[in-house]
């Protein structure tokens, strides 16, 4: 088996992996990036609407800063996230946007003078100041107090991905395309790289590295209806799980995006609603204000998706031959705005629906969109359980998003976490622990094991069909582990998935083609995907509360007293058919923003016993430091800057804020 060495092995060529690789490369490490597809085709390109960063340049963003962004993110997460991480993120996001600007991202800019925006269905005149002219502007997104989402028309992810990918080419980082990591090389305590399959030839290779980073994105394809690209099968998370030592956290926290076109599931951006688009029902009635009088269409995604499904259940859906949907109306934004700022949306509507969204309403229904859960890491991105293994981006549970992610925070997380975790990787490589001491016997054994896994599948002449199992799994997940969950359905989903796991050991192949064999690959992948599906379903079954995107109709309240904790799913024995679940408590006494009401959605949480005590402490500290500047006050509540690399600790300059 060929062995390829590097200092750093990044698995995944999307924005997170590329940015982490760049950070490590700039510190002098030799980096190799593996990617299933050419990196510019990664799913990062599909982020349309924008990236949140509190630049506060535009009038509607005025007064924004890290504190507001932090609080929006924590409320969005339904208090399920790590507040240290949220602080690190909110602090670094403006730097990331400015760095990307220097790398050529053509961010839309502030135009001085009056312009008309559609707010709450009405045209409103907004005046932009001349001092802000030409600075990076922002649009409105759900669950935010300020207009904070920086954007490039509705091709933000594309522009970011191309800029960062071109930077990695400039830095001479090799990307080994059409390569899939199939297992991690590890000895039970230290990760030494990965066994990798060449998707063009079927050949197995060993990539040995001092540090390995999984940045393989989400696992939306375990669902039938998803906005995710077809490559988002979660294999990176699955190979981490299969070590038996690494936990996947909060896998039940799955986001459904309110506006996927129906029935294809292709995303149309939240920017449609941010820019003033409305949701309508079968009668043409704008129903969101009935449910959410304050935030209306721009409550957080979990809330809007739930309200939409409830509205369909109440008989107000629009029926067509594929099922029921609702309407997204952006006609009121006008043709000029749509042609300029929502042109991908326009193209998607033209090509997939045959409609013109400046004149016709778009059929939409919520679809799986994002995995808040993933490989559990520390704030540095170090993976629990294995030294030398890191993870960032959607693949990781860094835990910025808790149980619901705000729109515009994921594409921001990719670059921000890449900047931070890439530095931690470089630190690790420079430390004594970063020395490579792997034995060739271990590499050989791991390689043999992976080869045996593939040949066992190729040899098996069982009666099962991989694409049928995949469809059964996807259907089970969409029907029983979707937006509205119930204990009975979840139990039935767990039972179904367990039987699918057993059946997946009996897949027979119809074709024994040499080289790239798509059928063999599918048979191999579906076994991994089933494990992820079980982590999601079992995690959801055990969590007898509702929090963020995890909504249980049989346990509708958020229960901080019993469930202010992170689910950790392990798979220690290859033969077991459901994960081993453990829990990690969140410490209320260290929260800067103790649990409360989100400002939208239900208001009936069961309090944690420490909440009132912590709230009193926070109130007292705030009062005591009332005359101090906001950074001093903040540092007293939750110190975080020491977690950041030194060059990312500085204050962010803003118009109108004293330096």
């Amino acid at each position, binding site marked *: 088996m060929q062995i390829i060495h590097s200092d750093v092995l990044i698995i995944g060529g999307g924005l997170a992996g590329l940015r982490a690789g760049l950070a490590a490369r700039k510190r002098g490490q030799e980096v190799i990036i593996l990617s299933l597809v*050419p990196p*510019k*085709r*990664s*799913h990062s*390109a*599909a982020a349309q609407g924008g990236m949140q960063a509190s*630049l506060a340049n535009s009038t509607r963003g005025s007064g924004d800063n890290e504190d507001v962004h932090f609080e929006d993110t924590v409320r969005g997460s339904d208090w399920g996230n790590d507040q240290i991480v949220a602080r690190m993120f909110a602090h670094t996001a403006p*730097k990331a946007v*400015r*760095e990307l*600007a*220097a*790398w*050529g991202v*053509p*961010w*839309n*800019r502030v*135009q001085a003078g009056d312009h008309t925006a559609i707010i709450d269905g009405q045209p409103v005149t907004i005046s932009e100041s001349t001092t802000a002219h*030409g*600075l990076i*502007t922002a649009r409105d997104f759900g669950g935010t107090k300020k207009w904070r989402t920086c954007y490039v028309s509705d*091709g933000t992810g594309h*522009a970011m991905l191309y*800029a960062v990918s*071109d930077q990695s*080419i*400039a830095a001479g980082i090799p*990307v080994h395309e*059409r390569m899939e990591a199939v297992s991690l090389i590890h000895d039970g305590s230290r990760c030494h790289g990965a066994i990798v399959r060449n998707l*063009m*030839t079927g050949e197995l290779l060993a990539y040995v590295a001092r540090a390995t980073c999984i940045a393989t994105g989400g696992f939306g394809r375990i669902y039938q209806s998803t906005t995710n*690209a077809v*490559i988002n099968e979660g294999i990176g998370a699955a190979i981490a799980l299969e070590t038996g030592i690494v936990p996947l956290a909060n896998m039940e926290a799955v986001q459904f995006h309110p506006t996927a076109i129906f029935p294809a599931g292709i*995303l149309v951006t939240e920017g449609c609603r941010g820019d003033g688009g409305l949701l309508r029902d079968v009668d*043409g009635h704008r129903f969101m204000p009935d449910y959410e009088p304050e935030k209306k269409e721009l409550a957080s995604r979990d809330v809007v998706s739930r309200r939409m499904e409830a509205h369909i259940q109440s008989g107000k859906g629009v029926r067509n031959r594929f099922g029921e949907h609702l309407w997204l109306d952006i006609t009121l934004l006008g043709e000029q705005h749509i042609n300029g700022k929502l042109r991908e949306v326009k*193209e*998607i509507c033209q*090509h*997939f629906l045959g*409609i*013109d969204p400046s004149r*016709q*309403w778009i059929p939409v229904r919520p679809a799986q969109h994002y995995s808040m859960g993933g490989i559990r890491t520390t704030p540095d991105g170090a993976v629990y359980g294995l030294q030398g293994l890191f993870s960032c981006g959607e693949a990781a549970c860094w835990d910025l998003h808790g149980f619901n992610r705000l729109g515009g925070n994921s594409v921001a997380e990719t670059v921000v976490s890449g900047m931070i975790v890439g530095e931690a990787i470089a630190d690790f490589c420079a430390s004594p622990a970063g020395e490579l001491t792997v034995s060739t016997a271990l590499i050989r054994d791991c390689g043999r094991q992976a080869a045996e896994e593939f040949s066992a599948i190729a040899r098996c002449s069982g009666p099962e069909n991989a*694409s049928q199992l995949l469809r059964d799994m996807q259907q089970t997940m969409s029907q029983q582990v979707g937006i509205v969950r119930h204990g009975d359905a979840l139990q039935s989903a767990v039972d179904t998935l367990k039987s699918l796991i057993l059946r997946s050991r009996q897949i027979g*192949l*119809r*074709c024994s*083609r*040499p*080289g*790239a*064999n*798509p059928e063999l690959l*599918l048979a191999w992948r579906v076994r991994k995907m089933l494990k992820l599906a079980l982590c999601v379903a079992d995690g959801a079954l055990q969590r007898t509360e509702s929090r963020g995107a995890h909504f249980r109709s049989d346990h509708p309240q958020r229960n901080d007293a019993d469930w202010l904790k992170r689910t950790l799913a392990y798979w220690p024995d290859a033969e077991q058919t459901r994960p081993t679940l453990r829990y990690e408590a969140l410490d209320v006494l260290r929260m800067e923003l103790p649990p409360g009401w989100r400002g939208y959605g239900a208001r009936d949480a069961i309090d944690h016993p420490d909440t009132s005590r912590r709230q009193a402490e926070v109130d007292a500290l705030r009062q005591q430091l009332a005359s101090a500047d906001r950074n001093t006050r903040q540092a007293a509540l939750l110190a975080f800057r020491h977690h950041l690399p030194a060059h990312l600790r500085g204050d*962010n*300059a*803003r*118009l109108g804020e004293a330096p």
Partner: protein
Amino acid sequence: MISIFRRPASSPTPRRLTLDILRYNPAEPERAPTLQAFTIDEAEGMTLFIALNEIRAHQDPSLQFDFVCRAGICGSCAMLVDGRPALACRTLTRDLNSHITLAPLPFFELIGDLSVNTGQWMRGTAERLQTWIHAVDRVSIDEIEAPMAPELAEAIYELDRCIECGCCIAACGTAQMRPDFVGAVGLNKIARFRLDPRDQRSDEDFYELIGDDSGVFGCMSLLGCHDVCPKQLSLQTQIAFLRRKMARLGFD
């Protein structure tokens, strides 16, 4: 009232589609490339993405093709649809005849069946044309960003929308004769960085990259690229403009 534009309702019995697909697996060099016919029933809203996946799931699990976003934004699935380069994922079967021919994009290395290696070629082109911002000045990311005219940012994005699908190269007369031609995708990138004031390269620098027959002077103005670009980039204008700028420089 809502009026949804509908194409003529499909007849009660769905069309039966025949897809002739070019098959070749480089791992089996002894087997010559061949057109294989598959028949499927058309469904409402069917795209070539749906049709090809259905064939792979039910008829031939070995069929190779590339899809990623399946939404027309990533550029993975370009192929020859009835001889014309197009993104398969957003090609609706109802816009095609019932007999459809699919072949891999020419010019690029064939991986198998409909899958070609555009990624490797695009990376090589990016390295050769140095498609990144060349800035001498260091930027502090703690400070307020440099302003840019809003309309300039929008003009740069117009050119930044290329998805490197390879359609322009597959449709290019010059590329058929000169394997080293950078094509419309390469020239458009130069136009994009040339327009961007953050890139401090001069026209002389750009001339070094594209001022010969493998660059802007290799274009024969057949403009197949312009006709097939799925993002409708203004390739004709960009190439003509660049050629004028570069020609002037060549004379000086």
